[in-house]
């Protein structure tokens, strides 16, 4: 079962856990399962249009899924999915 690493901001929605294991054969399925098991995560990862939120970065092992098949990226049982917030800002 894939392992999902959560950023600090979202851990409170998963019982304080840094890492959880959820089923899923694609990134979309993993995130859907994640949100189903931890409803507090709903709406924070995927938009209502079904796209990855632009302020969320998702990695399959070491690779950014935006440069792969995005939410359709296939996930193996021994893969690690890491979720990190985009870190941005500026004077403007």
């Amino acid at each position, binding site marked *: 079962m894939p392992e999902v690493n959560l950023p*600090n901001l979202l851990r409170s929605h998963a019982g304080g856990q840094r890492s959880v294991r959820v089923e899923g054969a694609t990134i979309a399925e993993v995130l859907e399962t994640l949100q189903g098991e931890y409803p507090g995560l709903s709406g924070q990862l995927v938009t209502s249009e079904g796209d990855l939120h632009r302020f969320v970065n998702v*990695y399959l092992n*070491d690779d950014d899924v935006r440069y792969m098949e995005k939410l359709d990226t296939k996930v193996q049982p021994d893969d690690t999915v890491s979720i990190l*917030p985009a870190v*941005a*800002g500026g004077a*403007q």
Partner: protein
Amino acid sequence: MKDLSDDRPAAAVQPESDPMPPGTAEMKCSVLHLTVSQLDEMIAHCLRAYPEEGCGLLTGHATTGTVAKIQPTRNVAASAQVYTVDPAEHLRIDRAAEAEGNSVIGVFHSHTHTDPYPSPTDVSQAPEPSWHYVLVSLRQEVASVRSYRIIGEEVAEEPIEVH
């Protein structure tokens, strides 16, 4: 000796701290602990990045606000007005911090021509309420450094204790 043909600000530093405004209990107790060399490292990275905004992450102990490492990163926005920490570098730094028993506890970035205070963009895009947000202003000849906590839309300056 400062090269007068070089319009970049000098590398000196003025860590500043004012009394904290009223806020949450967490904000009231918040302090960022840095060493002199860490302060210099942040400023040096921002000066090297000039005229673009420089940025990087702070790793260390979340509960005490003690910085273990300054982690300069690439600004993938490559802009003088906005920054975006390279996501791949963020992932690498996050993993390395965990392996060392630390965590990412904040971010620093420069304002090349404005004061060291979080802009509306900084506030709206602040990703983690538990983080320390360090601003390095290059507006004056002497770089100015301040640190803040940003929780929701609430901004509170915190003291920087330099050791």
